[in-house]
Structures are given as structure tokens and as C-alpha cells.
């Protein structure tokens, strides 16, 4: 990093970076604009408590969306995340009597395994990701209900587990800390590790990556396992916040929010390119819209329509420019 050659190339390097992350900057400007407009027109929007709430609510979506970003970067998709959240929730709630730590570990491990199973089917048997993960989307929630004894609500009282969703060390909610940590690690993994580079290489040109020695199967399995693991973590946070496991509701429809956040953030569904910070911003945009509509007393139904419009606009702006 310190030799002359690097310094010489630094100018070009900077320019390339800006071009590379232009979608992120686009999304970032949109987010800033939304915050500024709301701060002016929405009463009580510019308020520390409100910001804290927004972050609190967006955290599980961000965790899932980060996993989704890795999956989409390989050119795949993971529809099963919501059901994996439910499975993790049910496992944790039924294993709590072994202690919070064991329950958390078990739940996250099961979630990661479920993801790895997706990856194995996709890469080993060459079944389309959308089909494989759709199957787990459907069956996973069933499994979660079986684990939670027929899908009933399982309330619990376990302060150390509930800390995951209710704790506020130094006034900051635990899930916000987890979210920031996961995003930071994910940014590093995507940019600076062989795994991260293999992920975008596989998404960019699978045949070329394979011929360059990339273990394509292993990379895909890892990506889906990571998605499962992060979904599991999100499921635990939701469960802890609620103080009960509801296998029928946890993570319902979250796959759509996660995909939307990823795409709005600037990661194209075709794979080969990925921006984790963009995904964070994408999720925040969606959350700010929801919050501002609620605060302005506009119906939730309308916020859905606006969200959809924003997704379309974002994808349109970021469409590949054909030379």
C-alpha cells in the first residue's frame, strides 16, 4: 500500500471507485432527501427517539438483506429467509430451558444449515435458486410450526435471551449494535476477502470463474448458508423483542423487503456486482418511507404503493447502460 506504484495509480483508483459506487451515491442522495423533506414537513420526525425507532425497526431487515446481497451477487436469490427466521425462532423458544446461549447457538446453526441445504441443492443438482428457496419458503414455515408444537404462540420469560431484542447498552438498542457490526463485517468480507471476491466473480461469469480455479459449488453453498445464518439471527432478534415465538408470523414477507433493499441499494439482480452499504441505505429508505407515512397518518396501503414505485424507479435508474 505504500510503494510508489500505488501512489501513482491513486488518482485513477479514486475515480474508478466513485463510478463503481455511483448507485450507492444515488441511493444515499435519495435517503438524505427523504430525511430532509420529512424533517421539515413531518412533525416530530427530526427527533432522536424517532431515529432510534427507525433503526430499531429496520435492523432485522438489514441483517436479512445483507445475506441477500451476497446471494444476489452470485446471481441467485433466497426466498426462504422469512421461513428460516421462523425456524430459528421456534428452535430458540423450545430450547430456552437449556440456557439462552445454547438456544441461540442451536437456532443460528439450524438456520445456517437450512441455508447450506439450499446452496447444496442449487449448486449440486443445478436446480434454479428461485425454485429451491421457494420450496423452503413454503416448507420452512411448516417445519417451524411443527417445532413449536403446532404453530402456537410460545411465550417465554428469559431476560438474558430477551436482552437480544430489548437491551439498550449505553442507550443504544442491542439490535442496532448487531446491525452495525454485521454491516461492517460484511463490507470487509465483500471487499477484502477471497470469499467476497469469489462471490462477485461467480456472479459475473460463472464459467470463467470456474476455469480460473474458483470453487463455484463451495462458494454458492457458503453464500446461502450465510444468508440462512443472518436470517436466523434476525429471527432471534424479532423473537426476543416480542418475548414470544410466533412461528406463523415471524419474518413473514421479509424476503421481499430484503430483495427490495438490495436492489434499491444498487446491487443488480443479475449478479456480479454488490454493495453492502447500498443495501443498508436501501433498507433505510424503505423504513423512512413507512415511518413518515405512519407519522403523517397516511394509510399503510399507500406506503406499499409508494415503496413499489420507488423500487421501479431505483431499478430503472440503475439499469445497465448498454454501450
Amino acid at each position, binding site marked *: 500500500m505504500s510503494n510508489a506504484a500505488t501512489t501513482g495509480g491513486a488518482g485513477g483508483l479514486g475515480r474508478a471507485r466513485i463510478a463503481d459506487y455511483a448507485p450507492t451515491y444515488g441511493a444515499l442522495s435519495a435517503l438524505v432527501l427523504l430525511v430532509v423533506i420529512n424533517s421539515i414537513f413531518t412533525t416530530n420526525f427530526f427527533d432522536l427517539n424517532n431515529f432510534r425507532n427507525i433503526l430499531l425497526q429496520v435492523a432485522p431487515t438489514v441483517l436479512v438483506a445483507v445475506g441477500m446481497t451476497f446471494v444476489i451477487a452470485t446471481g441467485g436469490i433466497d426466498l426462504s429467509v422469512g421461513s428460516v427466521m421462523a425456524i430459528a425462532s421456534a428452535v430458540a423458544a423450545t430450547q430456552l430451558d437449556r440456557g439462552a446461549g445454547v438456544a441461540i447457538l442451536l437456532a443460528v446453526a439450524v438456520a445456517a444449515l437450512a441455508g447450506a441445504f439450499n446452496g447444496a441443492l442449487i449448486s449440486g443438482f443445478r436446480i434454479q435458486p428461485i425454485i429451491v428457496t421457494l420450496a423452503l419458503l413454503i416448507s420452512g414455515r411448516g417445519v417451524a410450526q411443527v417445532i413449536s408444537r403446532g404453530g402456537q404462540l410460545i411465550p417465554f420469560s428469559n431476560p438474558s435471551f430477551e436482552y437480544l431484542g430489548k437491551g439498550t447498552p449505553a442507550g443504544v438498542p442491542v439490535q442496532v449494535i448487531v446491525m452495525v457490526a454485521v454491516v461492517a463485517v460484511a463490507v470487509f468480507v465483500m471487499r477484502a476477502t477471497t*470469499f467476497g471476491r469469489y462471490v462477485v466473480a461467480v456472479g459475473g461469469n460463472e*464459467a470463467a470463474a470456474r476455469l480460473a480455479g474458483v470453487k463455484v459449488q463451495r462458494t454458492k453453498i457458503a453464500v446461502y448458508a450465510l444468508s440462512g445464518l443472518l436470517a436466523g439471527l434476525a429471527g432471534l432478534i424479532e423473537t426476543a423483542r416480542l418475548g414470544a415465538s410466533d412461528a406463523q408470523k415471524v419474518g413473514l414477507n421479509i424476503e421481499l423487503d430484503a430483495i427490495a433493499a438490495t436492489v434499491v441499494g444498487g446491487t443488480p439482480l443479475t449478479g456480479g456486482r454488490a454493495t453492502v452499504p447500498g443495501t443498508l441505505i436501501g433498507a433505510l429508505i424503505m423504513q423512512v418511507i413507512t415511518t413518515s407515512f405512519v407519522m403523517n397518518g397516511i394509510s399503510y396501503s399507500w406506503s406499499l404503493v409508494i415503496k413499489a414505485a420507488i423500487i421501479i424507479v431505483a431499478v430503472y435508474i440503475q439499469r445497465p447502460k448498454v454501450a
Partner: protein
Amino acid sequence: MSNEPLLRMEGIRKVFSGVVALNGVDVTVERGEAHALVGENGAGKSTLIKIMTGAYRRDGGRVMLEGREVNFRSPEDAQEAGVVAVYQEVNLLTYRTVAENIFLGREPRRFGLIDWKKMNADAGAVLQRIGLDIDPRAPLGSLNIARRQMVAIARGVSCGAKVVVLDEPTSSLTEHEVTILYDVIRRLKAEGVGVVYISHRFDELYTICDRVTVLRDGKFVATRLLAGLEKIDLVCLMLGKQREELRQQGATAFGEHHAGRKGIAPLLRAENLTRGRKLDHVTVEAGRGEIVGMAGLLGSGRTETARAIFGADALDDGQVYLEGRALDVRAPNDAIDAGLAFLTEDRKAEGIIPELSVRENLTLAALPEMSRLGVVSRAKQDEAVGRFMKRLGIKASSAEQKIRELSGGNQQKVLLARWLCKNPKFLILDEPTRGIDIGAKGEIQSLINELAASGLGVLMISSELEELVEGSSRVVVMRDGRCVAELRGADISQDNIIRAMAEGSAAGEAKTTTGAADAGR
């Protein structure tokens, strides 16, 4: 009118966004004739048949069917007029029956409902007419590829096809199935149907076709009767060489030959590589510091050999040895770990990762060496990228420029550097200078020479005879999935290479290696 040919295409021209794909191409197909269409990469065969069958609109020229000018707007249009294409990937419905597929879209009806009885009977009649014993009620999915292809032909015949275009019909057929196809073609010919036949296999052309039209670089070269046309003359037409010119030496950037040292165990030996009909017991070896050239026409098994050595395709049989050690290569990464490198022919599909930068592309294969505990050392990356960009003269605005924005020659250099920074022992190059500008071409050729001089073994596949003759210390010639000749020293000439490509063995004292490879290493 009666002496008008069945199909006449005159002065056909096609331009794709400014690039001329076809210009001034003439083909005539007579009634009852099987007409072969041949040409190397980029000759324009597929463009021509797409125009013939209505998939593309022509930009110039005339198409006459039975003496009347036609202007097909779509494949359906062409089919209605009697020109039908049967592609390798058969476009039929797997879950419907043979009869339904044959009559799809024009089912016989009775009282507004499909008349199943008539449809099955008619389908049976059509199948019988071309000599096929297939149950019309069988679901198409229960038939193998060969028979599905026959059903596609039957569909064409039942539409009243006058011209049937077969695009590489035998590529996925077994020997036995090929003979069935021949029978079908003979029946079609007997009925006065014109058959346009595209294949890389000379044996097939000479067996079933009457005339051949040769295309090169989008231009018409010649139409000849196959009977009496020597294979070597056909190859010369395809490659654009005059037989008298063959002995001349071109100008490439290769220096003197690097003969492998004799009497030493070869660096790499690939033995008995076999895969379906694509590779038939291919044995190749190369020593340290040796550039072994590999010649052959399109579809002769050159790329397949390279992929087989590199572990990119599963083999039926065969073994690769490096430095006398048997390699257990199941996937490319195993070959790479052993010290092999493979520069692919198709840069876009199998080389570059378009959205990634020059740096990322260049270091992709070497990431394991450039990282610790999975974390990539940016310093090591930058060092290697800087070194190779300078050494190979890679022109890019910076190492962070996306590789897709580079010229073909610079992309090729990046891909070559991807392997060189791994310090491989053996380099497989598939068409290393195809589609790149003259300057970069010379640079890459002298680099290959330099690498060999430093002790690497090189297997160089090329369609450019000059490159092979001047660059190689030995030339292996492939034909129909077999090594048919091996040329050394003074025997390496364009003349001998072409002769071997065409006839299977070179003139002179060049020894053939088919099956004769000695067992010892």
C-alpha cells in the same frame, strides 16, 4: 421455369450494427440434392441459414424459391413456403406425443375438436415415409435426442418442406444414429427435397452430400461438386490458402524453435483422453521449454483436448501426467493446483469477469497465494498487477478500470497475466491471438516464446497456420476427435498440416500417433 434451381440465394448481405457479417454470398440448392455448407469460425454459416429460414432479415441480395422471389419475415413464414430448419437444440414439446409435435398448430379437426385418430394415423404415415419406426402416440420425452431430431425432420416433411436445413445434426448422435439419419436424408433426396447440411465432419459431407459451398469471413468462396474434390483442396478453400503458396513462411513474432530436450521424461503427458464422440483416445505430450502446436479444423477436438487436460469436462477415460506424476484432476482448480494454466479461446464467455476491474481479473486465480486466512493482501495484489501491467504492456486507464472496457488484445494480456502470476509449469493456450490487433499479437507471440525459453511447457492451439509453423517445435494435428498426425522439425509446414487436417495423415516421414503412443512415459 423447370430448370430453375429449388432455392437460389444471390448476393446475400447482412450487417450487424455496422459489422458486415455476410457480403455477396451465393448459394443454390437443387431438387434432391444434399448441399454442404462449410467454413471456419466467423465464416457466416449460421447467419446465412438464419436468413435462409427467416430468422434474420437480409440487408441485401435476393432469395428465390422455385424461381420466385421470396421475402421471409419469420421462421413460420419460411416454413409455410417450404423452408424448414432443424436445429441442434430441437424446439419441440417434451411432454406431448410425437404426433402432437408433428402437427402442432395445424392439428386435423373434426367438429371443431382435434381428430386424434386421424392425427395419429397421419403422423404414422409421415414417419413411415421417411423410414422411421416411431410410435406416434409416444410422448416425445421418451425418445432420445436422435429420435427427437427425426421427429423434427418429420414435422418439416409433413409441412410439405421443399428445403430442409440440418445444422450440425450429428453432434449429439452415436454412430448408429448417424446411419439412421443418413437413411432419412436419402429418402428426402429421393423425394426431391433439397437438404442443406452443416457439419464439421468431412466424412459425413463426403458420404451424404453432393455439393459443397465454402464460406470464409462472411464471403462466398466457392461451390464445388464433392465427388472429385480432394479433401486437401477443400481445406485450402476453407482456410483461404493456395496450395502453391503453402510453403511460404509468414511473419510472426516467434523466434527460433525451442525443441524439447530429448530423452527426458515429458513435462506433461495426457494419455488416452476419451469423451463420447468428441475425443477418441487422444494422447499428447510436451516437454519443458517446448511449444507443442495443435492444429485442426473447427470441431476437430482441439479445445476439447485442452478442456480435458484441464479438468473442465468429465472424461470417459484418460489420464494426465505432470512431471511423471499421475494427476487426479476432477475440476479446473485441481489442475491449477498441480501447476497447469489454461487460456481459453472464448475470452468473453470463459475468460473475463466483465464487471470486475483489471486488478481483480488479473489476480483472480492467484488469490489464494495473495491472501492470509482468507483476507486478500491489497499490497500483494497491487505489486503483481503493477509488475504484469508493465511487463506485458497492458494499456488501461488504471488497474481499477473495468476489464470489459479494454480492447481485446489488452484483455487477453490480462488473462495471460492471470496465469503467469501463478508461476505455472504448463500453459495451455487456446487461440491465444485470435481477434486481437497486430501489435498485441506480436507481443503475445514473443511472450509465449520467452516463457517457453524460461522452461515452461506450452500447448498452443491455433487456427493460424503461420503461427503453428513458426511457433511450434512440434505440431499435433487433430481430426474428428483424434490425433491424426504429429509433425516435427522440417516436416512442420503449412502443406503438411493441411494435408493431415484433410486426410488424416501427413505426407512425408511424419509419423502418425493414432493409438500408437507407447505405453511407457
